[in-house]
């Protein structure tokens, strides 16, 4: 299981109810179910991925986060997880609002557009950056609202969203992001993980 999921799993307390939005093939769901006794549900847009989840015995609903989160009542989950998909929505602010409505807390991860390799790629090559976490070309990327760790950090603060924990991931290392080290973390982390609450 990828490092990101390991870090997310550590943020989640045992025996809780969790919704994994954009749960993919259910890797994180399965881990949480088996290792943390989590009552876990998934929402996934791809039919094939939903089928994979069903084959793993996971409860998943085929659907789209922008349209289908509204069916869940307020605070009906302890945590709602959104891994590396916020930037793919037409209206990320709306999705974020919905995550924080449905979940008591939300865990949001974002690929960091402020990462030094991305900056360097654009600076030197002058073309849209392609990296391990952002493997697509400009014309076929699902990512239409890219942001940096700094952007997201400032954004949630401006919306009066409480940050419980924010972590910068660089290779296998996770470190705490704070006001004082934000500029450094924004340069050296390729992924940001935020535990937030409204």
């Amino acid at each position, binding site marked *: 299981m990828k490092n990101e999921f390991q870090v997310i799993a550590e943020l989640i307390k045992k025996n809780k109810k969790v919704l994994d939005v954009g749960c993919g093939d259910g890797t994180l769901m399965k881990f949480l179910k088996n290792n943390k006794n989590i009552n876990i*549900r998934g929402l996934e847009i791809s*039919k094939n991925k*939903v*089928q994979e989840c*069903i*084959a*793993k*015995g*996971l*409860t*998943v*609903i*085929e*659907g789209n986060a922008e349209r289908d989160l509204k*069916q*869940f*009542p307020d605070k*009906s989950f302890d945590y709602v997880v959104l891994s590396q998909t916020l930037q793919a929505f037409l209206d990320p602010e709306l999705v974020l609002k919905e995550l924080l409505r449905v979940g008591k807390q939300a865990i949001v991860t974002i690929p960091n557009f402020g990462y030094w390799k991305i900056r360097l790629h654009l600076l030197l090559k002058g073309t849209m950056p392609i990296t391990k976490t952002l493997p697509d070309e400009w014309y076929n990327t699902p990512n239409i609202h890219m942001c940096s760790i700094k952007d997201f950090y400032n954004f949630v603060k401006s919306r009066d969203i409480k940050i419980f924990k924010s972590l910068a991931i660089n290779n296998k290392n996770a470190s705490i992001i704070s006001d004082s080290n934000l500029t450094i973390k924004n340069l050296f982390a390729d992924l940001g993980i935020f535990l937030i609450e409204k």
Partner: protein
Amino acid sequence: MNTENNIKTLIVKKPLKLDCGKTINEFPIAYETYGSLNENRDNAILVFHALTGDQFVTGVNPITKKDGWWSYAVGPNKAIDTKKYFVICANVIGGCMGSFGPSYKDSQTGKAFGTNFPIITINDMVNAQYNLLDHFGIDKLFSIAGGSMGGMQVLQFISNFPDKAKTVIPIACTSSHSAQNIAFNELGRQAIAADSNWKEGNYSSNDTIPNKGLAVARMAAHITYLSKKGLQEKFGRKLQEREDIKFGFDADFQIESYLRYQGSVFVDRFDANSYLYITRAMDYFDLAKQFKGNLSNAFKATKAKFFIISFTSDWLYPTQENKDIVIALNSIGADVGFVEIESDKGHDSFLLDVPDFLSALKNFLDRSYIES
């Protein structure tokens, strides 16, 4: 239990009060089973059939000599694996395959009930079938499953008996019959009523029966079970055993011949009055209405695990209507999974060889059984 003409029958002694107000006594429920009930009695699946189905789910139907209606899904090693599970299916009351229905003889008059048969509902159907649990000594079913009207029975069953099933699989169905659904059913009923042999329902099997009206009803309904794309690909404008059109009203096109055939074979196995009664039961189905307009309340008392399946090309019970059930369940935090299966085969997809559907069904059941 009586066994007559390969039809197993349970005579229900307990009186059943119907929604219409009448009470029925000592009535027969015809059923069939597949596989065997295990020692713990925890591997039973109650399957509910659709409008024109019957209790013969799989294998060869002993009456029609054709394959059972869910042969693709039910059988050894199939999605509903009869090596693992004990599958029970009953003919609905109102039906014509041995259960209490309009073709059943009234002991007082010695004649078939015809339209003197009481109006029945989906609720009455599942309440009647519930007696099978006692009959087999099953405290809790592992699963209940069905498509179309079978799915409606699934929803009604878990609402009526919230702790009697661990898993619940409504397929290609709705919680409330739409105006379009009612319209198509009414078309079928009027076709039957327009046949002079119908005689207000008082025909007997010795007379000429309203088979023309029933055949037209079946033809019209059959179109609603398919998709435009499916029809176009299968038939297009292909001609039936002729080089060119004949400038007449014979079946020039293959689709015409196909529909005529579907109508003609249907009348051999189905009773026109049953068709009226069962379509009426479907039209009256509105689960939300039973709970003052709040569908979620129908499921509040159950801890069962739901898995809802719809099909992309089903325009009779479209995905949105299936999703409304998902939404009602999510709003009360129920355990519900949902998938829309890609298929060009229309509403009938659930009866056909649609691999994605069959594998989803199998995976859900087998995984749930391991974890239960």
